[in-house]
């Protein structure tokens, strides 16, 4: 039983990690809470749904296309909404509010188009799952963990060992300085949003295969991403990954002792504890901006 819960925790954590890490790099670079990340997360599976279930396309084709659409959506939001706002001197608070508006707008568009009921990308019967050390793991769940670890590792490599990645980090550190030194911070931001949103799209699709999809899943996933990034420490890919894993584990172990209904409350209690006692998170540097 405990092993199953631990495994569930890791799988949940892995799914969260994809959203968290992608949210984290966007936050580190753009320096505001991009709530509309949740909209990108939910847009991808619904696009895939249209392609696979309504148009009958093969998942091999539909899934990558859906991810690219999600990635482009994210980049478009940056280009069309955030960049003009930034040019006008908008504070992080204004960007947060605009982002919130975008999330609500897009989430409800999906609701209008598809209805609020749960759907799934799975076709065929529910697979029982292979036995692993006394617990069960389905193929999809294995894919989730693999994709998550691989993607997060690739993101880390991108940030630390590529030219563009270095620029992204520089922009995140001090965008004024980066621009003065001749770095194209606008382009770096677009790249970050594109990559981040693509990963979020991937996460949404994977979760829709594993369980189900609803228009409200975006806000849910996003709130967990925020908690993970803050707990893990903003500015740290490894931190966001760990934070997400921690949340996945805590949520599933909670089920063991306390019932599932308190999951949300406990997740956010965890967030509050970190915000108030250790604002820099597990692995973040002592942040300048958290406490006055």
């Amino acid at each position: 039983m405990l092993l199953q819960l631990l495994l569930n925790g890791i799988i949940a954590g892995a799914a969260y990690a994809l959203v968290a890490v992608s949210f984290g790099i966007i936050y580190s670079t753009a320096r505001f809470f991009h709530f509309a990340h949740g909209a990108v997360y939910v847009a991808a599976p619904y696009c895939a749904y249209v392609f696979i279930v309504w148009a009958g396309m093969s998942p091999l084709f539909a899934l990558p296309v859906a991810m690219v659409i999600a990635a482009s959506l994210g980049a478009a939001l940056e280009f069309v909404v955030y960049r003009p706002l930034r040019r006008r001197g908008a504070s992080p608070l204004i960007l947060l509010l605009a982002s919130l508006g975008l999330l609500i707008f897009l989430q409800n568009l999906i609701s209008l188009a598809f209805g609020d009921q749960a759907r799934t990308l799975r076709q065929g019967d529910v697979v029982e799952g292979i036995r692993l050390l006394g617990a069960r793991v389905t193929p999809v769940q294995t894919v989730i963990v693999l994709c998550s670890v691989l993607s997060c590792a690739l993101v880390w490599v991108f940030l630390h060992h590529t030219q563009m990645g270095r620029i992204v980090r520089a922009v995140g550190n001090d965008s004024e300085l980066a621009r003065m030194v001749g770095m194209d911070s606008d382009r770096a931001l677009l790249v970050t949003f594109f990559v981040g949103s693509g990963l979020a799209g991937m996460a949404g699709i994977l979760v829709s295969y594993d369980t189900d999809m609803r228009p409200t899943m975006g806000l849910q996933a996003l709130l967990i991403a925020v908690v993970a990034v803050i707990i893990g420490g903003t500015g740290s890919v490894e931190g966001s990954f760990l934070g997400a894993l921690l949340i996945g584990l805590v949520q599933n172990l909670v089920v063991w002792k306390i019932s599932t209904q308190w999951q949300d409350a406990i997740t956010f209690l965890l967030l509050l504890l970190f915000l108030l006692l250790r604002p820099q998170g597990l692995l973040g540097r002592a942040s300048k901006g958290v406490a006055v």
Partner: protein
Amino acid sequence: MLYFLHILTLVCIYTILAVSLDLLAGHTGILSVAQAAFYGVGAYTSALLAVRVGCTFLESALAGVFAASVVSFMVSLPSLRLHDDYFVIATFAFQIIIFSFFNNSMPLTNGPLGIPGIPQPAIGGWTVRTHMQFFIFAAVIAALAYAVVSRLATSPFGRVLHAIREDEVFIRSLGKDTLRFKVVAFAVSAALAAFAGSLYAHYITYIDPTSFTVTESILVISMVIIGGPASRWGPVIGATILVITPEVLRFVGLPNSVAASLRQVIYGALLVIMMTFRPRGLVGRYGFMRR
């Protein structure tokens, strides 16, 4: 006609909510996503006391106000030292935790089943019964709430709140304990929201957790922003627009769930549009820009 009065009563209730948030967000510059939580604390306290203990409206409403103030201290005191956007996240967390409490404490709040049978308000010997009476009752309370916030905004207390919004470092250097002002503003804001909750509970005579979600908080924020923060009529205008719009849609014959989603599409869009083109709202003078 009855339907029309019902809408106007809702406008009054939401005006109280918008005005309460405006004190905090518009005048003091502190954005909170927990307004629905305080709305709920007022509604639940009031409903439980009225249904289970038999308190009158005034007694239960005052208890709701008191409860919300206490909860507000628990939220504000630890969180106010966080920076703007982190503070918003903290209020998000509190909102979700408090909602969770409403939704999961079966013995106390009856969880998702809600609390039915809340009596209509009785003041002295007079019970508020008809739609017209309710509208007048709600309008009076809304006017009172409006007057409270307006009075505070034009007083020396309000002057300091505005200064906190503009340059907190400066006002601290003048010897003002800005934390105290912020905590007080937060408490007043919560108290007013709670009163709106009591009014709501005794009007609809049934409450359940779904009226007090994050989405509701965001709706109230939208009202303040779209109308215009820290302006005389902004919150009222915002409340009116955002309450009436979905009703208009329902009038046009759209089914309930579609109307609900469409309403959110509209106010999501309005939020983005306002932030982009007119952050000070329709009639406001202040928009969350920092220099």
